[in-house]
């Protein structure tokens, strides 16, 4: 319980920093920290495989890519903060937050289900992934291929 509160606090702190930091690199590092803390949250929910994948894919690949693009473009501009716009956006987000929180007032499940020790390990995920989700798995790999080709085509210099 205490662990959850510490992790939740850190997650919220870093994610707020993502939105409020005016420097892009600071935002990116805050997001990397958020993703890292969320990986630990996944561990508390018996999802060790996904926790590690979260670090590997999000923090290790996607965030590095974003940082790489930031350095490549090197915009070096600090964003202005129009007060009215920020106020409006924050209010809207708070309203959305209240609405979503109202939805979880009566969740469908209350108690934890009993799970085997191997829950969330590589075997159990692979079992599900390659039997029930074999077709989506294939489609996901095609999606990645399309994304690679699309990215190369978009970012390539026109000759």
């Amino acid at each position, binding site marked *: 319980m205490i662990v*959850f*509160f510490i992790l*939740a606090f850190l997650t*919220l702190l870093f*994610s707020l920093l*993502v*939105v409020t930091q005016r420097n*892009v690199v600071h*935002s990116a590092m805050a*997001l990397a920290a*958020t*993703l890292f803390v*969320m990986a630990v*949250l*996944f561990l508390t*929910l*018996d*999802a060790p*495989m*996904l926790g590690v*994948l*979260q670090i590997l*894919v*999000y923090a290790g690949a*996607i965030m590095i*890519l*974003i940082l790489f*693009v*930031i350095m*490549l*473009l090197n*915009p070096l501009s600090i*964003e*202005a903060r129009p007060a009215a716009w920020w106020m409006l956006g*924050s209010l809207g*987000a*708070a309203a*959305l*937050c209240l609405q*979503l*929180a109202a939805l*979880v007032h009566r*969740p469908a499940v*209350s108690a*934890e*289900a*009993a*799970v085997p020790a191997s829950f*969330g390990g590589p075997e*159990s995920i692979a*079992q*599900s992934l390659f039997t*029930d*989700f074999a077709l989506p798995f294939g489609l996901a790999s095609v999606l*990645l291929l399309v*994304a*690679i080709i*699309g*990215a190369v085509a*978009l970012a390539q210099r026109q000759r």
Partner: protein
Amino acid sequence: MQAPIEYYLVLSAVLFAIGVAGVVIRRDVIVILMSIELMLNAVNLTFIAFSRFMGSVEGQVIVFFVMTVAAAEAVVGLAIVISVFRFRQTLDPRDMQLLKW
């Protein structure tokens, strides 16, 4: 002691709202992309919480797919950012509204 599921759901809702706020407020395409990642992660947290409390591993498999889509989305999004920056020297979405009527 494990925290009850409501806590995880509320945390996820707040994270999602922060992501939405980032998309609405910020005027830097890269930060907007990062806020979208934040929203995707909030959803991931919901999936994993439900997966744990309902005792079925399917939720985690869905998160696996969300990660795949997020990676593809980030790659294509950043490629678009690079090519737009090459033509217009800006990352501000307000300068990218030629197609807006």
